[in-house]
């Protein structure tokens, strides 16, 4: 009897101990997790999201000769709050053809760059993905190596080639293909060539990682069912690589719209790209409110593709997690 009572007490104690421990466990874990979440989350809220609110605020401000060079939206005078919303920057942007042309020119340049990168990048990504496994890694590394080297260096490399006194003109002249040097530098063409050069790896990498997953047996099955190679490419490979095409295109298009360095170094002074306009408003004209307004319009333009890309990537990651 005594023994039974004792053992009963023991087991009760054990159960109580277990309950206490589990409570501690359940309390401790979420706390650790929220800490882990809070650090990067807080960083991004503070340094990425919050700044956009300031950009928005300052875009409604007016330029002032002061430090910082804009008028505060909210002022206190005679114990009353004055809020001065200035829409002038935006009406200016939509009214002045300079800005409109710059936006349009940037979008067009980015779109053409994306298209050319796709046309060049697809065969390359496809070839590397279909290459024997031993060679695949080396080939991919060779494609990506320029991406690792400095962006500025890559742009600079083209300056020597495209210069009006540059190598390409020298070559063409010595081959007697032309009589006088061509104006290659500081043209739309030079911007276009360098843009494609700089952004090509961003297209190839997502295309490759998509195509490499494509099951080669699908193509064998298509061939077995009497499909000609080019037709099985159109009906099997291309549709299945849709996600890679979209991801690559977005990764090229979105940052290309706001490109500054390339139009600055090899572009024409007349046809501006919006990234350069923003830079000039900020650094040369010291017109911060205008630069902010230009930014807001650019973000508004790019928000849809960015969110679209993000949703697609999340979906494919969720699929990967399931397998």
């Amino acid at each position, binding site marked *: 009897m005594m023994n039974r009572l004792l053992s009963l007490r*023991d087991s009760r104690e*054990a159960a109580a101990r*277990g*309950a206490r*421990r589990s*409570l501690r466990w*359940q309390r401790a874990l979420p706390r650790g997790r929220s800490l882990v979440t809070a650090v990067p989350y807080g960083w991004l809220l503070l340094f990425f999201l919050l700044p956009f609110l300031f950009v928005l605020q300052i875009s409604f401000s007016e330029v002032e000769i002061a430090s910082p060079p804009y008028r505060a939206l909210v002022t206190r005078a005679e114990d009353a709050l004055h809020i001065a919303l200035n829409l002038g920057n935006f009406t200016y942007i939509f009214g002045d053809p300079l800005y409109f042309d710059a936006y349009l020119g940037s979008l067009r340049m980015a779109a053409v760059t994306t298209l050319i990168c796709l046309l060049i990048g697809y065969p390359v990504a496809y070839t590397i993905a279909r290459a024997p496994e031993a060679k695949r890694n080396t080939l991919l590394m060779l494609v990506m190596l320029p991406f690792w080297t400095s962006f500025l260096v890559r742009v600079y490399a083209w300056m020597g080639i495209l210069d009006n006194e540059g190598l390409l003109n020298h070559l063409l002249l010595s081959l007697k293909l032309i009589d006088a040097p061509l104006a290659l530098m500081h043209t739309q063409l030079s911007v276009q060539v360098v843009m494609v050069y700089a952004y090509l790896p961003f297209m190839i990498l997502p295309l490759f990682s998509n195509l490499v997953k494509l099951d080669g047996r699908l193509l064998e099955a298509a061939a077995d069912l009497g499909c000609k190679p080019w037709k099985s490419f159109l009906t099997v490979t291309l549709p299945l690589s849709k996600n890679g095409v979209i991801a690559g295109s977005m990764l090229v298009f979105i940052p290309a719209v706001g490109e500054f360095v390339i139009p600055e170094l090899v572009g024409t002074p007349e046809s501006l790209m919006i990234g350069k306009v923003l830079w000039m408003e900020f650094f040369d004209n010291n017109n911060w409110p205008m630069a902010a307004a230009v930014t807001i319009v650019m973000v508004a333009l790019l928000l849809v593709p960015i969110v679209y890309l993000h949703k697609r990537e999340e979906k494919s990651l969720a699929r990967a997690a399931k397998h």
Partner: protein
Amino acid sequence: MKSFETNLAYSAGAHNAKPYLQIVDVVKKFGDHTAVDHLNLSITKNEIFALLGSSGCGKSTLLRMLAGMETPTSGKIILDGEDITHLAPYERPINMMFQSYALFPHMSVAKNIAFGLKQDGLPRGEIDERVEGMLELVQMKKYAHRKPFQLSGGQQQRVALARSLAKRPKLLLLDEPLGALDKKLRQQTQLELVNLIEQVGVTCIMVTHDQEEAMTMAGRIGIMSEGQLLQVATPGEIYEHPNCRFTAEFIGETNLFGGHVIEDEPDFVRVQSTELPRPVRIGHGITGTLGMPVWLSLRPERVGVTRRQPVSHGNWAAGTVSDIAYLGGFSIFHVRLDTGKVVKASVPATRWREEAAPIWDEPVFVSWADNDAVVLTQ
């Protein structure tokens, strides 16, 4: 009903010994989906128990709740008198051998086995000693310093087993223990594994979808479907006396006939089925009422195939051979009855010593004994 009585006898046997692990009314819901549905189960000490079911039946969820990877929505899990329902996995005296083995790829075999012991803060000497013992037990001493990727599948399985036994858990969980091995190796390893577990003397619950594995290794089997245990019994009992249609069809092959009771006597019953030409006589009474709908389960190896019409009793039917699957030691005859129903009969090769085996489209008779058909009421 016989199967019911025997079932009772077995579960009484299980209850006589003190339950070591008790799963009490456990429910697990994922959103709207109920993975485990008010499940009760008791396991005695040193038992090897198999949870058998097809994928998605909730067996893995149940195992993960025992390991502590999932928390039950409601219900209790009691191990050796202690309520462990809400203990974290690392606080439970339970270890698991994972389906993919989940060996730590960056640690050697010895380090893998030592990992759990280190978490307990055992002195180094004792850790080394126990790792040594484990390596010896699974005959992997030679490979102590190899990394997992340098081992074959069978060797990895043994390391995983050693790792989960090293802490001397009160309960060992095996998740599809041999699922990753190829068929030949699996059959050989099944008995090896049972011997090891019995040698160590650990209570063990395994999850599998492979009935052969469950029947070879386990002392008792629980058939799971849609989050519930349909039948818990020994392998023989489950095969010979399934308690429901699902179990009868899930374990092995069977012929099922729907019908109803037309004669209910204390020592026999008759069941009329539209799929059979005449009422079937069952040689024992059942707990049921006259006219109740039932199913008859008739294992193929219980069905005889003859050219001559069977005499004496009514448990036979005429038909023609519609298909023959020759499997060496025996053949499966598909006999189409006049009612249209196809009956499968598994006939040993030795049956055809005196006469030639029937051929396609040959008229034959199928027959069975009074106690061969099992009456299923659900």
